[in-house]
């Protein structure tokens, strides 16, 4: 019998530091944890990510430890991409589907050491993992609360972390992992992130969290490091074109109404589906989809004007609704008015004339716009430093 817990919202292991820094008292919740939407100023926090370094407490992210003799085989059955290609010390972005080929979630798979993995995700999926593991010799544990995590993202992130004492970090390749000694324990560092820029994620035991927070901000002060909240992170991830469960798609296991799920192809994630690797959950359905065609296309749209197209319908030339926007923002670094949108096939071809129906209010005076949209091919924000090793100086 575990102790009763009557608290409404949990604190993350970094709470002491986070609470001190969160001067706006603008709190949100994330998976049952109190999380700042903003600490001081969303704009400053966003620009820390693009101009210096921003620190985001991602401890509430769902984390599963998956190990045992069949861990690799199990994950290869679960995920659509070839897990065999993610060697020890590497991280892979991945999606997993139900048998109908509808995406349950996307996330990152950390191959910690031979046969020992950590799966990080937005949604909880322990039940699904257990059902999928029937017949596999594999150990699955939710270690969300057992791992404290910070994302340190932006051009000065590498320098700041080196100042923290992480020697040689500049040689860590994108999607690689490395372990450092820290505070008498271990600090695992991955060159990963959710901002589309140079950046790292730090993983440690909760008892090192306070020390890490304090040391990081001390070491990073001269590198203009600052904590960032959910709002700035969301802006950066939209600019980078990253999708998020619950925002840009409904996880298949939460879909009530038929047809509301999306396949990897319908989310622009077809590149993560490897039909050559052998059986995986959703494969037959996805093969069928590839033969018959998808129902939807996920696109990035450059929206005319500067009014964000949040929640907009997308219309074609004759005014028919052909889709809707799932995320949208004016992107301050790319200087574009970006919308991520789910469109009915065949819409979203490069030359399609599309319009976002935008409503905005100025002093309670509402204006309706039909803003011309252009389909964007390729990433909108993709600085070379994101991929360079050694990580370049800022």
């Amino acid at each position, binding site marked *: *019998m*575990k102790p*009763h*817990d*009557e608290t*409404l*919202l*949990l604190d993350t292991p970094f709470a002491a530091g986070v609470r001190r820094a969160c001067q706006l008292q603008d709190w949100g*919740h994330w*998976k*049952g944890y109190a999380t700042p939407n903003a600490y001081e100023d969303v704009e400053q926090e966003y620009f820390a990510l693009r101009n210096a370094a921003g620190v985001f407490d991602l401890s509430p992210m769902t984390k599963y430890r998956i190990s045992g003799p069949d861990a690799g085989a199990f994950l290869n059955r679960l995920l659509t991409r070839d897990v065999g290609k993610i060697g020890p010390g590497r991280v892979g972005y991945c999606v997993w589907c139900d048998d109908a080929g509808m995406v349950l979630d996307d996330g990152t798979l950390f191959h910690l050491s031979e046969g020992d993995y950590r799966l990080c995700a937005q949604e*909880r*999926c*322990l*039940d*699904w993992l*257990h059902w999928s593991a029937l017949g596999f010799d594999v150990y699955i544990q*939710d270690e969300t609360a057992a791992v404290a995590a910070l994302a340190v993202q932006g051009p000065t992130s590498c320098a700041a972390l080196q100042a923290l004492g992480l020697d040689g970090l500049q040689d860590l390749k994108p999607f690689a992992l490395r372990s450092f000694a820290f505070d008498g324990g271990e600090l695992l560092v991955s060159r990963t992130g959710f901002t589309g820029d140079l950046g790292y994620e730090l993983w440690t035991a909760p008892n090192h969290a306070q020390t890490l927070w304090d040391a990081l901000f001390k070491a990073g002060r001269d590198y203009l490091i600052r904590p960032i909240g959910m709002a700035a992170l969301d802006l950066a991830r939209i600019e980078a074109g990253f999708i998020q469960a619950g925002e840009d798609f409904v996880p298949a*296991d*939460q*879909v*009530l*109404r*038929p047809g509301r799920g999306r396949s990897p192809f319908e989310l622009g994630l077809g590149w993560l589906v490897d039909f050559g690797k052998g059986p995986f959950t959703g494969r037959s359905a996805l093969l069928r989809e590839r033969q018959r065609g998808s129902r939807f296309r996920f696109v990035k749209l450059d929206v005319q004007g500067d009014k964000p197209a949040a929640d907009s319908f997308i219309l074609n030339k004759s005014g028919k609704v052909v889709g809707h926007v799932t995320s949208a923002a004016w992107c301050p670094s790319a200087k574009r008015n970006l919308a991520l949108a789910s469109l009915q096939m065949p819409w979203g071809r490069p030359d399609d004339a599309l319009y976002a129906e935008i409503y905005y209010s100025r002093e309670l005076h509402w204006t309706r716009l039909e803003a011309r949209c252009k389909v964007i091919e390729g990433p909108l924000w993709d600085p070379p430093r994101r991929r360079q090793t050694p990580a370049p100086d800022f």
Partner: protein
Amino acid sequence: MMKQYDAIVIGAGHNGLCNAAYLAKAGLDVLVLERNPHIGGASVSRELYPGWTYSNCSYVCSLLRPEISRDLELPKHGLQVVPYHGGVTFTQDGDYFGNYPDEERQLREMARHSPRDASAHQRFEVDVMKQTRLIRQFLLKTPPDPTSFKPKDLKGLLELAAAFTELGEEGLLDTLRFWTLSIGDFLDEYFETDVIKAHMSGSGIIGTALGVYSPGTAYVLLHHYMGEVDGSVGAWGFARGGMGAVANALASSFLAHGGEILCAADVRRIIVEKGRAVGVALANGDEHRAGIVVSNLDPKRTFLQCFDAGDLPAEVRTRAKNFKIRGSSGKLNIALDGLPTFPALPKHSPLMLADMHFSDSLERLERAYDDWKAGTWSQDPYLDMLIPSTVDPTMAPPGKHMMTVFVQYCPPTLASGPWTPEARDAFGQTVIDQIAQYSPDFKSLILDCEVRTPRELEDEVGLTEGNIFQGELTFDQLLFNRPFPGCAQYRGPLPGLYLCGSGTHPGGGVMAAPGANAAREILRDLRRPNTVPPGYPND
């Protein structure tokens, strides 16, 4: 010359009143006859102990159709439903399982017992909600007759087929499983923790003379999930002032539309002339005449007690005799001198506002059912216990409390013979002893206790065998089979005779939908404009 009404409704329960209100709204001259000196049927609030209001029978509100509430202006007529949240099952080892209203907190509490169950809960909720969305579309519709080729039946069948199709290929298969599975088997497909399964299973057996492993009980759970409070599907609330507020508001709306209610009017017989229902005869010898007669009584009582045997076809009498309406539950209403403490709960726990239970495994629940089968009340009963005065300030004096305790199982008659006052008291004591195991100061706070067995429910309210739903909610008695073939569209076997009680589609639980649906069919037969609103569409 006796007054001739357009319609007489027998029974001032919520369905009778709802039916009458819609008929009166259509301009009919309607008389409602009630056997008791007070209205309400099983939707009643009574002050049996000075200063305390008891919801004597039904005690929480969710299923009452919002379309009806709005259309009959029930808020204007005094009805306010205040949502309550959460639930708790106390365990024998001094712990509990709390079903918190906050989603994340609930998941955390589930994970305290089993991380896997916490994750599975989402799948459970989605699967139940899919079935809920299917059935909700048909609550304010007359079930189509699958043997008929009338355009409206064919249209209804097409709607039914379309709803299944919308669920997708596997929807039909899932639905058929869901409607026939036991709640125990259903929960076993999601959860591994005894107390979580026991907590969730309560909705599958309430009001039903079946055990947690009896086929058909999964549907009963659905019946408790398909209501709403202000659009929050599955939520339950307290009617301010007790469940009598529902009937009182319906009565007020009915009276405002020009209706007439006569209490202490005990209908003994429905008068049939030339094969047509033409009026009723009361116990005191009075007769009332009307173009149509609508019975809010259960089908068994209607057909087997209110007619001269020769007035009805033998088949109807046979089907009525075979209608399943077994009583399974009792009720304690308790006036308390203060709020009892439950040491397992932290001080000021929000779970004090929740529904409380003490059965921590499906095995205990199944054994509780075994006692019923053997003709006695459960020695270790399942309780659905609430303290409405923690939410509603009108139920008890300030600082005092009213507790409502639904008890299952409790048989309509005992193996040893009919209920006696002594047996009833012993039944009450069994329940009080169980609560006191988890609340040491509970007994000392009791000022008054009303104990109700199925016999009280039958004798006072008139529900045969004391079945709270006017007939069991199993697949064989649902939709076009409720109450039985031939009477499933609210029309009785004789011209001029109608049924409007919970024994008809979509069943009991203080929905008022049977009453409204019956009114629509009556108005159709009378070629009057329909006054009953359509159901809100699924969104």
